């Protein structure tokens, strides 16, 4: 499939996209710092390097659409519009968190922002996203449901069953694969029997496409294309974006399975740097304007983090937590 150019060069649009990417990156950097300081416990899965994928998708979505992210969910959550304060609060386990501190790093549902929350079981959110689409079709609701998953999850039966179900019932699902080349330590080239995850689409009589996931414009265009295909009622779509997580799988990962050369190559394809260069080179934003946006995003993330930390003394009581086990 060839993409017709749909690149949006509008200054405020580009500023918006860049802001999302900065917010995502700075959120992860701050999270890592807070972990190192021992201020957050548990684990976390950082998505540094995958910002073009997150922002490209979310800029293409409307407020009628839904996402079901992966365990590596911070970037999508922030790009979908959740506040960094509620997200940091969740990581601090405070009652100001998106899940009132009951979820942690991998559970940040936000109904207001069309985010069902992640499954921390790799690939298990995909059928749930398919269910959102089922409701949309059954009840004639507008919107597309996005099942976000990684190359690792493409081995799950839940994905294959969901793609078949979505295809036979022509459900408005965007199967969105972030192929970051590794499922934990397992290289996708050794674990997947086809060259691209998107090749799986053919088996389910679906359209599929693989694109560069580190180039914002490419991701955004591909998402628009896939989404309009779905919105026109042509059934689900499998979009694969090729990207790279520059950090390890989780905070305990020593990254023994990949080389410094490979990491250096991907550092040279940092999605934020690529987008900054493009905006500057094309004269959409000046370097000074870019710096200003960067500084203001950084400042905001710092502010939200410290406010969340200050407020993190507020916790649910045991009884309040127990009262949430069952719905009234």
């Amino acid at each position: 499939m060839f993409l017709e150019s749909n690149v949006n060069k509008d200054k405020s649009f580009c500023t918006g996209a860049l802001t999302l990417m900065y917010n995502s990156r700075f959120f992860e950097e701050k999270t890592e710092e807070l972990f190192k300081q021992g201020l957050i416990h548990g684990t976390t899965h950082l998505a540094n390097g995958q910002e073009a994928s997150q922002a490209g998708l979310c800029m293409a979505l409307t407020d009628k659409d839904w996402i079901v992210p992966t365990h590596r969910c911070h970037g999508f959550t922030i790009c979908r519009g959740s506040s960094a304060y509620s997200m940091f609060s969740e990581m601090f386990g405070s009652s100001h968190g998106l899940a009132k501190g009951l979820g942690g790093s991998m559970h940040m549902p936000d109904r207001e922002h069309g985010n069902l929350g992640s499954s921390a079981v790799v690939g298990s959110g995909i059928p749930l996203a398919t269910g959102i689409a089922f409701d949309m079709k059954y009840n004639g609701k507008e919107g597309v449901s996005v099942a976000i998953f990684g190359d690792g999850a493409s081995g799950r039966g839940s994905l294959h069953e969901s793609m078949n179900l979505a295809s036979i019932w022509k459900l408005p699902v965007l199967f969105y694969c972030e192929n970051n080349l590794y499922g934990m330590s397992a290289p996708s080239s050794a674990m997947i029997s086809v060259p691209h995850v998107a090749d799986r689409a053919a088996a389910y009589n679906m359209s599929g496409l693989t694109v560069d996931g580190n180039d914002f414009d490419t991701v955004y265009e591909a998402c628009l294309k896939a989404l309009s295909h779905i919105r026109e009622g042509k059934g689900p779509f499998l979009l694969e974006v090729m990207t790279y997580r520059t950090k390890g799988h989780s905070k305990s990962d020593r990254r023994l399975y990949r080389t410094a050369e490979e990491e250096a190559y991907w550092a040279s394809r940092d999605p934020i740097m690529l987008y900054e260069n493009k905006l500057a080179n094309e004269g959409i934003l000046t370097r000074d304007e870019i710096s200003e946006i960067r500084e203001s995003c950084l400042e905001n993330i710092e502010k939200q983090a410290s406010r969340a930390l200050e407020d993190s003394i507020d916790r649910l009581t045991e009884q309040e937590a127990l009262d949430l086990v069952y719905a009234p």
Partner: protein
Amino acid sequence: MTQMTYRQAIRQALADSMEEDKNVILIGEDVGVYGGCFKVSEGLIKQFPDQVIDTPVSEEGFTGMAIGAAMMGMRPVIEIMYADFFTLIFDPIVNHAAKTHFLSAGQFSCPIVIRLPEGSGTGHGAQHTQSPEALFLNESGLKMVAPSNPSDAYNLLRKAVKDNNPVLFFEHKLLYDTTGPITPENIEIGRAKVLSHGEDLTIISYSHAMLTALETADLLSKRGIESTIVDLCSLKPLDSRTLFEQVRRTGRAVMIQDTAATGSVGSEVLALIASDKKTFDILKDPPLLICGKNSPTPFSKDLEKNSVPNAAESAEKILTHFFNN
């Protein structure tokens, strides 16, 4: 009062629920034209063509899908052809449905019903005859019901569909052809029923084993022993208050169930009774658990039949245990 089979009662509850609310849908394999593997949904597709949905053999996929739809406000009822296939839906049920409300701090709930035809006595071998309720018992966030008669089946299914939590609905295959009156009743999930009020002994049971319990009580009555009979109806939450009250009245408790003992509903019931000081102090004898064999269901007819308790054997055990007989 309308007489119905257990099968018809479930069908009627499905029909009434679907009639009332378009967001109630029945999803499963062969639930449409075929009428469901056990003919429970026979004819429903004609009445509700949009609400009865045949699926491919993708239990994990369509259960997860139903959970997503439920989180958006639909009220799906899933039929798992044989309860044994629960293994395929363990992840969506345990990791998602049961934790939806908690993990979203109440932003989402999961009003879904999973119908699980269970039980042995049909000659279908070890992978089509299990009663897996014990395997879900420890999971917070789930509700579980196991009605023993048509009326309870009707009323509990109606309640389950309206409940805002995931409800596992265990229907024993040997009950499908049993008949009884359907009484409109405000039976709550989580409440047990007291069927008789004898003074000598409290017999507790649920689902198919309830038939064994009733027959056992008849045999005991012929020996001059009168039983209080408690039908649990709901396995989760367990109605401990009714249990304690009814056991305290007689000072003797016996649980009869078809499943094996370890980590089961019965062992939970006995643990509750034994750890409630007021009840324990009144007990005249240690409580007794009469249960199924600790083995996969054998195919061979007599072996299969004997893998669950029968009334004669239960009555003997009770006489020996409590009455030195």
